[in-house]
């Protein structure tokens, strides 16, 4: 049973690791800090499925909201613009 580690409202940062291989956490969001918007449930890990390993291991998946100005140093838009990314739990750490 997979109890989610994070809850809506939690501030989280995205791990700044850069492995090769099949990863669904986009490069541009690594190392950035955002807020958990919602918990989407638990899903099989794409990093395992991609290599034919269907062991049923599920990871909680979160919608995480980022302020655009926090993601892009030269964001050329209003301060209230945001970016929402669906991120698996093992890519998130509590705020650093």
């Amino acid at each position, binding site marked *: 049973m997979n109890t989610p580690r994070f809850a809506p409202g939690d501030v989280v940062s995205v791990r700044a690791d850069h492995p090769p291989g099949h990863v669904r956490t986009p490069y541009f969001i690594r190392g950035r800090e955002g807020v958990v918007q919602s918990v989407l449930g638990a899903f099989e890990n794409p990093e395992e499925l991609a290599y034919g390993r269907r062991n049923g291991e599920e990871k909680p998946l979160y919608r995480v909201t980022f302020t655009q100005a926090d993601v892009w140093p030269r964001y*050329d838009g209003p301060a*209230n613009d945001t970016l929402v*990314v669906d991120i698996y739990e093992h890519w998130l750490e509590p705020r650093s």
Partner: protein
Amino acid sequence: MSPHDDHPHSHDEPHPFQPDIEDGPITPRMVMAQAVEELLIEKGIFTADEMRAQIEMMDTREPAIGGRMVAKAWLDPAYKELLMRDVNAASLEIGIDAGGIPIRAIENTPDVHNVVVCTLCSCYPRGLLGFPPDWYKSRAYRSRTVYEPRKVLEEFGLTLPDGVEVRVHDSTADMRYMVIPMRPDGTDGWSEEQLASTVSRDSLIGVSVAKTN
């Protein structure tokens, strides 16, 4: 005597009329696709009928389905509540099985305008809306929408005031997203069908809004 008469094959092997190979180059991957299809049918992995049914089903999936659902939601608060909770369940209500991949609705409001992209590939609610347009899968859209969404939206003819939050959704995982555009002004008393006609595919992706013209 047709060129087919002297090569061995059973009646079950598909040699469909292929208008797309009548003109234009025959590329290696077109040949690969046909070869793989025939091999998989020969091996009993699936049947020619299943192939036909799958292609026909996808041909019925189109943005107008999303348009109908949005119009229904504008008119019926209970349907809207279902749509906002679970697009797949809401589409079953109108007789469309959108398939197993979960689709979620994101609602535009006077304060927030949503736009969807898949930077890593081209995730899109295909089971409902059909095939995504080429531009959605393009390098330019996938690269730029996340960091200069307002500029991309302007290229589609949409300018939003600074007071409206532009919220970009990168569809990276198991969910697919459909934008629920705002009901356009001047549509009081319109029928569901008329309202559905205001909802374009582009407004369901978020690069446009629902319009009366």
